[in-house]
């Protein structure tokens, strides 16, 4: 018996001496000026904290951590987002109980575990602090304390397993919730789908990875909504924006309106700051979607008979194995030429040069001078270009970069463009009082994956004003496709775009473009609907995508009523569906 006790004690002691633990940065209870950035989870493994200070160091993030006394090696997972022959722009330090570890972090290219130093811990609870040194997008994913001098793995898959082991988690959520409809993505399309489904009596879960609803229209990105209401004016007026200049703080008023109107529905469960990470399927159906809280890591499995992919990037469909398109088709594949602009409009040979993502930003003249630091890491990108604000034309895309897989690189490139251009503007005499007011850090994407439905919407459909038996979305706005300015003038920076507008008469998007061709219970609404690159040009604006969401909401309600799949609505219940859409217009508005 004494031997057994001795062995148990020895094992405990070994555990004590080999103790290590992981802290996810986004779980810090006090985030200070650091922001949770969940945009690139699928690529680098986790949400992280971002020191988005626009050139001024942000207030520290802090966490109280219970820990056993002893000596620890400490690592932070971070990256240098602008490596080169200059000081890394996003440097920060780890501070433990007020003592800064001397090694500055954020120096190495690519996401990796950087060694912060060794520390002796004498207390049971310590305060771990992330101290930003620059205000230029320092980023910290996690911190690892280890008695042994062994860093965690850098490989993303190995790291995922490592995280689960250290945090006592698995990829399979323990908590399960069931709904009539699960909508993933809380942009205008997702909100509209949720409202309509809720009005029709469905219990809806709306999962959104940000604290604010609206997607590109939210006050975090501030793109104003364009397009017409179609059949869904009363729904979309609950959600849309006024026509303020893109980037304007007027977005905050419409944000409040949107939030208020969404919260009125008792049968919409809002899951804000939750990000889906997989779809679980059985044969050709999604049976559940798993999501994780972007700060505390809590997980939920969402079950439903029907799902709506409003993620923009088509994640739910992608994980489920839905067919999708990416890139620019050859002009000849779907007959989408516009002779006037030729290759600029649609290429002879297909490529990946899709429309780009934007980051909006503003500055203002204060009544006192402001310094802005040098930004050598931005100069290769901007060269001599200068600006004091940026609207929709601040757009970046490349044949080299994928709008999903390389989104962080795209975002960072735009930030270099912004900070560099602003720096150049500040050097001009008379701009001493000019200072940055707001710079988004969220990528406002225009185009990425497009899930394939029973109908692929094309430019010809718009140009010829094709009227379908299942026309549910109506639009009048020009077909609007962008190209990078440098294509015609190599002296222009690579982060500026120009638009081509093809004027058409009214055009229509059919319901058959709003459900997956091969995943039988999946709807899609938003920029990831079933269309070609040029086909996306007209309907991609947010009132139009909102119409798609509303249309899908009505379809989902009929699916529930009859226990059928989305395709059956077109094949067997089209009259009732179209009638439902037409008659709902007169229902009174539910807004303040």
């Amino acid at each position, binding site marked *: 018996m004494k031997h057994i006790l001795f062995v148990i004690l020895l094992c405990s002691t070994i555990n004590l001496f080999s103790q290590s633990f992981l802290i996810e940065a986004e779980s810090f209870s006090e985030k200070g000026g650091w922001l949770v950035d969940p945009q690139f989870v699928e690529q680098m493994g986790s949400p992280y904290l971002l020191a988005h200070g626009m050139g001024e160091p942000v207030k520290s993030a802090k966490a109280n951590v219970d820990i056993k006394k002893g000596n620890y090696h400490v690592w932070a997972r971070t990256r240098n987002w602008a*490596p*080169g*022959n200059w000081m890394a722009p996003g440097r920060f330090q780890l501070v433990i109980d007020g003592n800064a570890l001397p090694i500055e972090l954020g120096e*190495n*290219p*690519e996401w*990796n575990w950087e060694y912060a130093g060794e520390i002796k811990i004498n207390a049971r609870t310590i305060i771990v602090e992330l101290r930003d040194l620059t205000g230029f997008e320092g980023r910290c994913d996690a911190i690892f304390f280890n008695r042994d001098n062994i860093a965690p793995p850098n490989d993303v898959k190995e790291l995922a397993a490592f995280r689960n082991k250290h945090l006592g988690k698995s990829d399979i959520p323990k908590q399960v919730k069931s709904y009539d409809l699960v909508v993933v993505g809380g942009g205008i399309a997702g909100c509209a789908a949720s409202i309509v489904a809720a009005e029709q009596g469905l219990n809806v879960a709306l999962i959104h990875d940000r604290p604010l609803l609206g997607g590109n229209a939210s006050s975090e990105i501030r793109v104003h909504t364009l397009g017409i209401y179609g059949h869904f004016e009363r729904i979309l007026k609950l959600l849309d924006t006024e026509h303020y200049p893109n980037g304007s703080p007027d977005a905050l008023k419409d944000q409040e309106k949107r939030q208020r109107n969404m919260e009125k529905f008792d049968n919409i469960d809002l899951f804000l700051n939750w990000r889906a990470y997989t779809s679980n399927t059985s044969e050709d159906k999604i049976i559940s979607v798993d999501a994780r809280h972007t700060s505390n890591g809590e997980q939920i499995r969402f079950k439903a008979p029907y799902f709506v992919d409003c993620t923009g990037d088509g994640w739910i469909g992608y994980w489920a194995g839905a067919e999708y398109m990416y890139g620019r088709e050859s002009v000849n594949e779907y007959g989408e030429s516009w*002779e*006037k602009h*030729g*290759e*600029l409009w649609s*290429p*002879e*040979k297909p*490529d990946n*040069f899709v429309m780009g993502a934007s980051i909006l930003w503003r500055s203002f003249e204060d009544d006192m001078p402001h310094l802005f630091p040098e930004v050598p890491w931005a100069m290769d990108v901007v060269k001599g270009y200068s600006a004091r604000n940026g609207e929709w034309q601040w757009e970046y895309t*490349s*044949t*080299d*970069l994928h709008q999903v897989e*390389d989104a962080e*690189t795209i975002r960072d490139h735009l930030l270099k463009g912004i900070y560099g251009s602003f720096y150049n503007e500040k050097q001009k005499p008379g701009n001493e009082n000019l200072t940055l007011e707001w710079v988004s850090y969220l990528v406002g994407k225009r185009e990425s994956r497009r899930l394939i439905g029973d109908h692929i919407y094309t430019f010809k459909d718009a140009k010829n004003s094709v009227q379908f038996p299942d026309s549910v979305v109506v639009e009048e706005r*020009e077909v609007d496709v962008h190209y990078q300015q*440098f*294509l*015609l*003038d*190599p002296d222009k920076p*690579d982060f500026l775009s120009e638009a*081509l*507008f*093809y*004027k058409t008469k009214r055009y229509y998007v059919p319901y058959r473009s709003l459900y997956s061709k091969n995943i039988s219970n999946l709807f899609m609404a938003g920029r990831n609907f079933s269309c070609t690159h040029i086909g996306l040009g007209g309907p991609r604006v947010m009132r139009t995508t909102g119409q798609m969401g509303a249309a899908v909401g009505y379809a989902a309600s009929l699916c529930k009523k009859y226990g059928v799949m989305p395709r059956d609505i077109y094949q067997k219940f089209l009259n009732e569906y179209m009638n439902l859409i037409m008659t709902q217009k007169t229902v009174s508005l539910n807004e303040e």
Partner: protein
Amino acid sequence: MRNSISVISILCSIVTCHIHYGLCQSANSRFDGFIKSYAFDLQLADTTLTNIVYLMYDPDTVPESYTALISTAVCNDGLCQHLQIKLYWDLIGNYLAYDTIAGLPLTKYDHLPFTNEDYTKLHQILKDQNSVLERKSIDELFDHEKARISLTVDATTGATAEVVKNAIVGGALYSTYTLWHIANGSIKNKIGDFTSSIYDSAIQEKLLKSPEYKQQLFGLKMMNDQDFEHQFDLVFDLMRNGNPLVEMFILKKIPQTLWTSAQYRQSLIRSFPELSINGRSLLLNQLSELDWLDKDGLQFLSDQLGNMTYTQLKTYLALLVQHKDQVDSHIKENLYKEAKASTDNAYYVSQFLENYK
């Protein structure tokens, strides 16, 4: 009284037109000595008159441009005035210039003649193929809440919507709108079709040597695989000196036969530093499609590691794996050097060297 004013206005405008003729004539002078021949008829929307489009030849009797004496009506609220103007287009239907006719100056509201600034502005407007005039109807161009009374008509004429003031000659909305749509409308396709119907090697060479990218692209689109080989030098120059849109088009269109020929492939690879970022990616992607790549090409590209983006580097490293028999000490040395640089790429190169010791 009103009639007197009208007569005086017309007389003044005739005198003014003589003064402007010098200005007008400047558009004509570049086509001095050009022979012209009938090309096709042009029927415009607001007139029953048939306008004739002529093909103009340069002094070497190579087709150069098109011209037409346009007679059309400019109508507003049922009031129409006759307008005559000479227009010029390039070989693919892009507007080049205009000329007024002696004794027939352009006029705006109340028959006031165009000023010199108006004529200059008109030319700039007609040149703008992305003008808002294209996608807005004439009704959308009025601010209906404002009104301005014309001296010669009883009905009020709506003032121009704010949004388009810069896109028109002030006081000449209808003329500007009509002329823009004539200069940039269906004539463009008709000219393009006609040029295609008479297309030959002389026209092709002219287009490829043009400084205008749209003409370059037109010429490039008309080329088949044999044309690319015969005109390789010209196309290669265009690829390096044209804008990135043209460069990328060429890189996508160069036929496989040229990529597999050592002589052409070497030239293409060696153009890498001169290409835009997207051009470099396309070039590397094309090389990835080849079954065989020689050492020289891989060596040259290894000298360019510092100029590659991460994605380009990945493509290049994959080429090294694919053609590992061609990897020599020159290439390895460059890899080791890049692995020690303070760039994003250094990390990947280190990993690559680690995995492929």
